[in-house]
């Protein structure tokens, strides 16, 4: 019953061509009704039921009169039936139901009138007769119904009939009743318009048809707007809701205009659009403006829009302040972008009209009267649209960004949270689509960035850097690098306005990101000068970040410069770059980070040595020693640093005799000055390698080998001292593993010799005996803590036995006991 009825109504309403304002009311209201509302609703239902019953009854009589062919009675009962539509009691939703009931019956009535014409009454006669009906509303409904017949009869030119009808309807000024009456006229006139299109009537032109529709539209809109002012102010929101339900009645007229085939672009541009817009602007109603502007966009073809952009967009500037212009513009832009995607021809049309600029210009003008969020939304839509085009988009994107920055900047004040997010979306879009090199060409990009607050700017900057790292992009142009630094400038320098305690962990994370970025900034063609100038630029910018930042980023610059030096063939350039490294490392040690600087000096020494630039290498080594002497804080750090230093020295191959002597003597001197005896011992036997030059390199190989033994003997002495101290102060056996280590070193050098130049077999034998004594006392003590030392000893013995097997002559004189 109920459902079937609703279905029928839906079909009927769809037949009128409108969307469904009422068809789907939710069974339960989402907002709980107050008692008052409940009372009102049940009253409405009662009134509707009464009215419907009355209509039904009068319709019954009317149909009986039709069967009896009694024209007078038909008039009487149809008048009575239509009289029910005069009610003011019903809400629009209920009135619609009543209207549909009557509408059904009027179909039958129209057919009757058609038959009557055939039976001798002319249409004009009938037209005259109906005007005797008592009340205005029924009279007008009947007039329109007969009007349909009249139009079909061709007894008069259609245009005069239409004009008459549309003007007569002004007799009803009540908003709801008037709207439904005119809606009936719209429905009935559809056939007339079809006839005009088929050029049936020579006296009626398309312009006349258009005029009719426009007039009906204008009047309907006025009625619709007037609904707002009906009734008490406190019920305004309820009324606006009711108004919304009726909006398609008004919009239907625009649909009709768009479906008229003879309305071409010229007519649209000259007549149709200006008239519609005139009404929209003049009615000064937000609901109407928002709905109708959107209606225009959806209903008329895109070709029309493209050719009339200025008119449309300019009018957007004349709307009410509360009207949401941004969603209108976004709707237009989205529609255009779908249009462009559809085919190449469409894109060409767009270009030929210069539509892009025609959009941008009015938008920039309008922006000054809008709020931040609207402006942001509009430019976001325009950007999406621009990026979606296939050709030449980079310049345009730049233009859009520039305008956006100007518009938002012009509005002043700081950005709201939501506007900021929209803006961030605007900035992220090009990042996803373009390569980094292309992005860097968008000169307006930074100006948009600067509109955001510092936190968000940093986020965007981090996004940019991460994108570069992710894609592995290499930036090889100094100017581009400079642009990039401008883009991410907030990451590179301290916040001047907001000198809050900066979180060191956050800074470290950011700066590590920047450090990784440095490796992506180099020449791709092995142009060393180019790469070096990029690194110099980087160094200058990083310097401005202050010590907290540069301690993370400078070492990377240093390593990249070293890499260049390695590749460089030109000695002069290499020297220049090595000298530059001093300035970099100085900055690091001033942070203060002396240990980092120390390690970097060691690295520089290695590269300088590799390139046979002895002066530079010596210079770096001196600097390293300098830091070691003066700035390395504690014992543990010193021991570690010295080990690195010895290792580095040992890896150098190109020092001349004098310099080499000085360096290794200094290294040994510092080894002996270490605090702990065991550390001293280890450092000294490591130094032994420094005195050992492999045969064939240095001239006086025998002489240097001598010092090896001196060194090892010194180490042995220190080990014995350590042992002595341990025994007397703590009563334990002491660091026996030192002896075993020294034994290993003896064997190392012995094995390298061709014959017993420096280390004699008996030296090893003596040491072997010593070690075996020491370790036997260890095993005797049964103390688990010395297990490792014992294992070391056994492993060493096994090793020596293995060497014996390998070259028995050499090791003949050695005898091993367990």
């Amino acid at each position, binding site marked *: 019953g109920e459902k079937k009825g609703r279905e029928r109504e839906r079909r009927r309403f769809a037949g009128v061509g409108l969307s469904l304002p009422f068809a789907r009311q939710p069974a339960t209201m989402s907002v709980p009704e107050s008692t008052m509302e409940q009372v009102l609703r049940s009253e409405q239902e009662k009134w509707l039921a009464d009215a419907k019953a009355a209509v039904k009854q009068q319709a019954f009589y009317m149909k009986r009169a039709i069967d009896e062919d009694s024209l007078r009675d038909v008039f009487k009962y149809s008048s009575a039936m239509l009289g029910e539509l005069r009610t003011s009691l019903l809400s629009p939703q209920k009135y619609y139901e009543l209207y549909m009931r009557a509408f059904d019956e009027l179909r039958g009535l129209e057919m009757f009138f058609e038959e009557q014409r055939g039976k001798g009454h002319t249409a004009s006669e009938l037209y005259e007769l109906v005007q005797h009906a008592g009340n205005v509303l029924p009279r007008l409904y009947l007039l329109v119904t007969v009007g349909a017949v009249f139009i079909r009869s061709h007894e008069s030119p259609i245009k005069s009939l239409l004009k008459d009808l549309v003007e007569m309807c002004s007799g009803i000024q009540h908003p709801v009743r008037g709207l439904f009456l005119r809606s009936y006229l719209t429905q009935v006139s559809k056939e007339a318009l079809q006839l005009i299109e088929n050029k049936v009537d020579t006296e009626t032109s398309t312009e006349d048809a258009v005029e009719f529709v426009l007039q009906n539209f204008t009047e309907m809109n006025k009625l619709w707007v007037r609904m707002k002012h009906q009734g008490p102010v406190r019920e305004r929101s309820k009324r606006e809701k009711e108004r919304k339900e009726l909006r398609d009645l008004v919009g239907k007229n625009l649909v009709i205009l768009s479906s008229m085939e003879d309305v071409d672009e010229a007519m649209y541009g000259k007549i149709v659009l200006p008239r519609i817009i005139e009404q929209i602007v003049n009615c000064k109603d937000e609901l109407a403006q928002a709905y109708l502007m959107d209606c225009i966009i959806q209903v008329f073809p895109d070709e029309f829009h493209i050719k009339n952009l200025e008119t449309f967009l300019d009018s957007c500037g004349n709307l009410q302040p509360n009207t949401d212009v941004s969603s209108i513009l976004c709707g237009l832009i989205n529609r255009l972008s779908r249009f462009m995607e559809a085919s190449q021809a469409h894109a060409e049309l767009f270009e030929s009209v210069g539509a892009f600029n025609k959009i941008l210009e009015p938008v920039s003008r309008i922006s000054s009267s809008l709020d931040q969020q609207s402006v942001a939304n509009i430019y976001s839509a325009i950007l999406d649209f621009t990026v979606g085009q296939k050709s030449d988009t980079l310049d345009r994107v730049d233009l859009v960004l520039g305008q956006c920055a100007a518009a938002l900047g012009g509005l002043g004040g700081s950005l709201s949270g939501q506007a900021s997010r929209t803006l961030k979306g605007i900035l992220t879009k090009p990042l996803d689509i373009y390569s980094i090199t292309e992005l860097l060409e968008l000169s307006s990009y930074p100006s948009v960035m600067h509109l955001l607050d510092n936190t968000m700017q940093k986020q965007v900057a981090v996004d940019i850097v991460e994108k570069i790292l992710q894609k592995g992009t290499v930036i090889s142009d100094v100017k581009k690098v400079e642009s990039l630094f401008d883009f991410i400038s907030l990451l590179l320098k301290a916040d001047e306005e907001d000198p809050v305690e900066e979180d060191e962990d956050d800074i470290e994370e950011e700066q590590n990101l920047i450090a990784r970025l*440095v490796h992506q900034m180099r020449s791709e063609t092995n142009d060393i000068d180019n790469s070096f100038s990029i690194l110099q630029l980087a160094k200058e910018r990083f310097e401005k970040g202050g010590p907290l930042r540069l301690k993370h980023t400078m070492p990377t610059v240093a*390593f990249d410069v070293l890499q260049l030096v*390695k590749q460089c063939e030109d000695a002069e350039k290499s020297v220049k770059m090595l000298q530059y490294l001093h300035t970099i490392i100085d900055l690091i040690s001033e942070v203060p980070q002396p240990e980092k600087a120390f390690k970097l000096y060691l690295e520089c020494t290695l590269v300088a040595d590799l390139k046979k630039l002895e002066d530079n290498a010596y210079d770096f080594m001196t600097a390293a020693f300098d830091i070691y002497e003066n700035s390395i804080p504690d014992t543990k750090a010193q021991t570690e640093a010295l080990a690195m230093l*010895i290792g580095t020295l040992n890896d150098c191959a190109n020092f001349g005799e004098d310099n080499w002597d000085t360096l290794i003597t200094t290294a040994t001197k510092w080894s002996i000055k270490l605090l702990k005896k065991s550390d001293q011992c280890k450092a000294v036997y490591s130094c032994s390698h420094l005195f050992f030059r492999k045969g064939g390199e240095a001239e006086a190989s025998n002489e240097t080998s001598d010092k090896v033994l001196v060194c090892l003997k010194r180490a042995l002495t220190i080990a014995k001292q350590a042992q002595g101290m341990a025994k007397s102060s703590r009563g334990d056996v002491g660091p026996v593993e030192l002896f075993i280590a020294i034994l290993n070193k003896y064997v*190392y050098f012995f094995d390298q010799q061709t014959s017993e130049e420096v280390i004699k077999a008996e030296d090893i034998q003596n040491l072997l005996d010593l070690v075996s004594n020491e370790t036997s006392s260890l095993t005797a003590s049964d103390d688990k803590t010395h297990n*490792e030392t014992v294992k070391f000893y056994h*492993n060493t013995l096994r090793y020596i036995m293995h060497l014996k097997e390998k070259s028995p002559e050499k090791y003949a004189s050695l005898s091993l006991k367990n």
Partner: protein
Amino acid sequence: APWRRRRSERGEKKRGGGDMVLVLCLGDLHVPYRTSDLPQQFKDILLPGKVGQILCTGDICTKEMYDYLKTICTNIHVVKGQFDEDHAYPETKVVKIGDLKFGLVHGHTVIPWGDISSLGMVQRQMDVDVLISGHTHEFRTYAYEDKLLVNPGSATGAYSSKEASTTPSFCLFDVDSTKVSRAQAQWCDAGTRRR
């Protein structure tokens, strides 16, 4: 450039017996000072949950990288490299896997750097079956007497003062209880294959 994997055949046939542990061996990452990141191909292979242990020779350099390695496997052993700063990594470490002892040392304290005999002394001192060291950024496995000396090279191909350029590499071990089955060596860019 395409990367090559070398899987030994003997290792494959041995599969299916006993407690096999897959051990990842790598180091000398030097991120961010010398390189920006691990090669993407490595990141694609080294997915979480695939390896049972990580032995790292050090010079990771940042906490971020350490955290990343931890996501590959929580069972991670690291020793202190020359450029590792803040962390309390030990200088050496011995890890027992199955019946085998693995020794871990960075290598910059072993003088001369990369020298086999000096590394041998460290192996004897730590009493390990396999000694893993780094620092030279040169991938190498060396049979030393009946023991194994391994250098997994630099996982990022970081700059080293000696080499002109370094190929990124790391090492995988399949450890059976009594044997290291074989090392699977992974190279990037180079066509060289190694056992």
